């Protein structure tokens, strides 16, 4: 077995919004092994970005706070690290590609400077060498290195995303967290960026946590998948498990809402209803309200995780040996 690079255990994160408490992440557990790619899939507001920021220890505080659980990176608990120790890890061991490339770059600094900054922080090299390295990184992500002294407004959205990727990969991180790296891009660029991430992952043997709400993207890149709903993992398994035997009604619903060319279904079947308000989560299963198979027992207490085949976990009362 290869080394566990990331292990999240029972993570809880809350935001305070005035008097309300937004329970964004509620007891998430995940593991990621060296060189592996895990897709974290869920609809908007499910707590994906919050989970990612928790790993970087970058939850804005206030209003956010990690209220429970632990996050282990190569066996060490990140929750116990000092701010100075975290700074050595960020950008160096663990890097993050942020969701929105349009706002993720500083408009006042040249893109070369912004890439060189992370290099200078983690490697003892001169300014000129860092700049050379920045140009190199730009070439790797497919942008002319000669444009290093241009500013973000002179690049297109897809190029900005590439630069964000260049920043994240400049110091060869062991773990890359990509938060919806393609949603802001058009379809052709999407494919290019995914391919790029895939190539770089192989080249640097990086482990990847890919966050998305697009099951197609996951199928291309990941070997394992976790489905997140209202801050909880509802199903977890290998790509094969999830795509061939989706078991949780929510997962099945997600697949129902993407068009399948091989079947003669002409309408999408979106899941009816909305995710529950994270300030007022129900006592039982958070999905019960939208679930066609829900019964009374579902609304009373949350289901335990059940391993329905080796490595395939589902959190639904259907599999907990109870009758509906």
């Amino acid at each position, binding site marked *: 077995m290869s080394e566990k690079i990331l292990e999240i255990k029972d993570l809880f994160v809350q935001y305070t919004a005035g008097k309300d408490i937004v329970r964004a992440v509620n007891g998430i557990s995940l593991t990621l092994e060296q060189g592996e790619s895990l897709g974290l899939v869920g609809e908007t507001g499910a707590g994906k970005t919050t989970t990612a920021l928790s790993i*970087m220890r*970058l939850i*804005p505080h206030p209003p956010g706070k990690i209220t429970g659980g632990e996050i282990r990176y190569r066996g060490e608990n990140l929750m116990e690290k000092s*701010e100075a120790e*975290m*700074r*050595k*890890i*960020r*950008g*160096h061991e663990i*890097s*993050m590609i*942020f969701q*929105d490339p349009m*706002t*993720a*770059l*500083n*408009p*006042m*600094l*040249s893109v070369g400077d*912004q890439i060189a*900054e*992370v290099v200078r*922080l*983690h490697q003892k090299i001169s300014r000129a060498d860092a700049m050379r390295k920045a140009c190199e990184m730009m070439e790797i992500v497919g942008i002319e290195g000669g*444009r290093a002294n*241009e*500013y973000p*407004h*002179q*690049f*297109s959205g897809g190029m900005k995303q590439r630069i*964000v990727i260049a*920043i994240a990969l400049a110091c060869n991180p062991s773990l890359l967290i990509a938060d919806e790296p393609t949603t802001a891009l058009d379809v052709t660029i999407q494919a290019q960026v995914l391919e790029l991430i895939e190539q770089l992952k192989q080249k640097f043997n990086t482990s990847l946590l890919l966050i998305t709400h697009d099951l197609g993207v996951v199928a291309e890149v990941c070997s394992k998948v976790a489905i997140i709903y209202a801050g909880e993992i509802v199903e977890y398994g290998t790509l094969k498990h999830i795509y061939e035997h989706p078991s949780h009604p929510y997962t099945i619903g997600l697949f129902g809402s993407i068009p399948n060319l091989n079947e003669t279904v002409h309408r999408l079947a979106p899941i009816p209803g909305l995710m529950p308000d994270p300030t007022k989560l129900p006592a039982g299963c958070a999905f019960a309200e939208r679930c066609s198979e829900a019964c009374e027992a579902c609304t009373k207490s949350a289901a335990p995780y059940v391993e329905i085949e080796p490595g395939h976990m589902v959190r639904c009362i259907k599999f907990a040996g109870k009758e509906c």
Partner: protein
Amino acid sequence: MLRYIFKRILMMIPVMIGVTLITFSMMYFSPGEPADYILGELATEEDKALFNEQNGLNRPFLVRFVNYIVDAVQGDFGISYSTRQPVINEILASFPTTMKLSLYAEIFAVVLGITLGVISAVKQYSFIDNFTRILAMIGVSLPSFWEGLMLIILFSVVLGWLPPSGLTSWKHYILPAFTLSTWGLAACMRMTRSSMLEAIREDYVRTARAKGQTEFVVIMKHAFRNAVLPIITVAGTDFAKLLGGAAVIETVFSINGIGKLIVDAINTKNAPLVQGGILFVAVAMSLINLLIDLVYAFVDPRIRSQYSSGKRLKSKSGKKATVS
């Protein structure tokens, strides 16, 4: 860039003609004869007639206005009625004093205002934030002449630490410069705070943290650079105001600056001096405004690229290069 500066300076010409027309008309139509003020009560009618004749005061309005403009373009702003010196000499003799005083006041206001503003933004709702908020509220609402008088009473009359008037040693500068700085200090502080509060929530600040950058650099290099433009505007316009509007404080502290020069000239209907003085102040203010715009371009690459002659930009990014 140079073309832009040249254009801006050309645009100042109509503004200056307008300013001159207004002050000229005001002096022309305001009641009272200059001869009465200048020659005193004992002067006979013949003396006054001779004075009017010598100074061209009995010619029609338009003729006098055009003559004034024609002379002014050649650098001749007339002779002060009271001292019989060229107006330009009097202005040049008193302006450095005002300039120096305003500069000290503005530097104090900017340095302290930005420091306190940044601290209150980073530590929002802390003691220092609340405390500076109250100070700023007092600062913008205090009438400056009253503040000046109170400071004189406290520091000169009661405590005897600082001189109440004149400008012969560094100690003389403290009270008037402090009084002059109050409004700008408060405004700078509040603008820095609100602008910084916005900037530190931006995504690129999070990107910088994710690189492992220290908090100080994140705040000063990434957030502050983006927050600085509105602060420059506030500080710049405040400085322009000080140059022209220090009349009250110069009077309170008996300082022979350009503000007091103009006020005294108005009181004695010394039209050439008033016109010359106001024109001079208007030029100074326009130049400072131009300077603010140039600093903008210096700081912000997006604005800078608007000045450069569009060509280079167009060939590279094809779009977005708005050319002004």
